[in-house]
């Protein structure tokens, strides 16, 4: 098979193969390096439930967290336009205070399952920079609003 086309000698071919392999390895190493550094810093956050967060508070203190929970009914305090929103989320046993200053997602409401992401400090509300509701791409109609 390999004799089909051989304009360069065997040593030349080996050199080409080594070079190709070298470039391939460089690409692979670059991807690996970028992925490794990408995981450091602010891109990664601990994904925990409210109870887990309380249990591991000291370990997670000062880091980014991503916490899932249901919005506690009646806990939403809208400020005036432009002011941050305060609310609490719960996983059934524990509750967590959240402060959020951005534009709320459309499906945000009492009892809705949300995932908040932001900086956590022990004893303070989570400073969320993102609040996600369940992904609309999942198509499922949300529980009947009118009951």
């Amino acid at each position, binding site marked *: *098979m*390999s004799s*089909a*086309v*051989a*304009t*360069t000698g065997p040593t030349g*071919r080996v050199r*080409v*193969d080594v*070079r*190709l392999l070298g*470039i*391939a390895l460089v*690409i*692979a190493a*670059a*991807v690996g390096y*970028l*992925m490794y*550094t*990408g*995981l450091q*810093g602010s*891109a*990664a*956050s*601990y*994904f*925990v*439930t409210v109870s887990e967060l309380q249990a591991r508070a000291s370990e997670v203190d000062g880091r980014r967290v*991503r916490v*899932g929970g249901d919005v506690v009914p009646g806990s939403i305090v*809208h400020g*005036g*336009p*432009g002011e941050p929103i305060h609310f609490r989320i719960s996983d059934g046993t524990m509750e967590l205070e959240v402060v959020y200053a951005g*534009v*709320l997602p*459309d*499906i945000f*409401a*009492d009892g809705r*399952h949300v*995932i908040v*992401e932001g900086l956590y400090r022990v004893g303070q509300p989570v400073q969320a920079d*993102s609040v*996600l509701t*369940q*992904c*609309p*791409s*999942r*198509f*499922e*109609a*949300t529980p*009947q*609003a*009118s009951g």
Partner: protein
Amino acid sequence: MAQLGSGALILALILAVYGIGASLLGARRRMPELLQSAFRATYGVALLVALAVFALVMAFVRHDFRLAYVAARSSRDMPLHYVIAAFYGGQEGSLLYWAMVASVLGALALYLHRNSDRLLLPYMNATLLSILTFLLLVLTVVASPFRLLPVTPPDGAGLNPLLRDPGMMAHPPLLLAGYASFSVPFAFGMAALITGRLGSDWLRAIRRWALLSWAILGMGLLVGAWWAYHVLGWGGYWGWDPVENLALLPWLTSTAFLHSIIVQERRGMLKVWNLALLLATFALSIYGTFIVRSGILSSVHSFATSDIGHWFLVYLSLVLVVGIGLLVYRLPGLQSERRIESVTSREAGFLFNNLLLTGIAFAVFWGTNFVLFSELFWETRISVGPPFYNRVVGPLLLVLLLLMAIGPLLSWRRTELPILLRNLRWPVAGAVAVAVIGLLFFERAWAAFAFAVAIAATLVTVQEFWRGIAARRRMARENPLVAAWRLVERNNRRYGGYLVHFAVFLIAFGVIASNAFQIERQFVLRPGERGTIGAYTVVYRGLDDRRTADAEVVSAIVDVYRGDRFAGTVESHRYFYRNYEDQPTARMGIMLVGMDDVYVVLDRWQDDGTASLRVYINPLVIWIWIGAAVFLLGTVTLFWPQPVPVAVRVPRTLPGAAKEA
């Protein structure tokens, strides 16, 4: 209607199982009648699935709320087009739609290839029917869209407001059709592996089918970006949402596939790689379909949401085990016919392009599933957000752009370096000019560099067209327009590919500009007050409140000035749909001024009309949508019927194919 639909699905399931047996037996015992009947079984399955879809759509149109699926997703006051669109708005319906696309395209492929690929067809048919058997099993056993409610409600719940948008009518069906249609090239690939006919004939058979799936999926992604930009209201078009990421994965691997099959066709290399890419693309399509349904990635409560996930997981493992097993079994027949002779050859260029594309796909896959991996390995769930993807994928995409600047200039086997450098003269000059200007005027150095690379790639592609046209003008004495038309028509694969490259460049310019130069400000304004953002002034005129058939609409009316010049009035809406009053859905006010999008989000308001508005200036985003149009044009060009139909039959007489038969 319910009986008709579920009956059709059960019949289709039986027919599909029969068709698999008949295909395999017919091929083994060489019984043409049995094979004929197996093919007819596939046509029958396609018809029956289409009938089930018809039954479901009719149930929606007639508001037959006896069906749980219809009652949960439509209501009497919804406009007709959304009622019909609601049919794929839920899990069961979207799976039915998946099955319809796969079976109809599969039947079409069987029919079109009935004379040209006789030896592959029985196994292609069996593979296709095995996919359909799985889907039909799920549709009849666990997720039937025709399940009846014990009590018929007077009216339905209506469709989730976020899905009531023209973009959402096109985005899910395109993505799902893209996923589903990869069944056809996958079935051909499996047939090649099973029969051991691993020459280039199976590749010719599937190139167009792979291209079709890839084009549909690509359009689906672009429409999804458009929808996110117009409805979600965070000023962007791509949020690295897990579901979008998963749709990007098969698109990336199939892009790699479409490039590397050129190498196999021309040089007889990369055979294992191509089949592996095909397998990966199909597996990722299944994975994308399955994970959307499972709720694993978007929720902390993993593996609890839907029992359908297990079915898909088992099926996915089955596909991978069988696929990889066959690939290993056929390794001896998949030796390259030639070796790469030089690092600066076109085949090496394609190889690097493939490595980059799969590298990007791997990074995105890793990031999207990192929640699962980190839990598996470190017992801590760690999720990664957009900064991860931007840091990892951004530089890789830039290298890919750089490769798009060099790749078209490489020759097969070996490129003479002086010629390459001469051809790169003008593009490099253009890039240097842009880089210098960018470094002088931009605050962000990376943007100058990125623009420079994109300019170089664009100029190389323009130069390719220009040289082709110039050659035709010399040889055939045609006027430039005729020359351009004939050039693309005669070499549609090459120049169609370049058109798609143009689309990529347009999108790249839009992405670079909107990432580097987006301005965002939050205003709290009383009616009549103004705010400035960048070169623009917005004047908030007040709120407007009106009613439509199924919703109440609150709109903020905003005048936009560029400098002192009045540019226009823009309205940003919030819809309160009946049954979904607590889920106001936004429609952004977006106005194009020059090349900037002025993007106004109505956040909150008070009874006295004071409103909180978030305004973004997004430069060049319009180029992304123009790029989408060019992408469509390029894919149509790639599909343009080729003038030599004989080409389909030639390979069978080639020594390479004969040897393996």
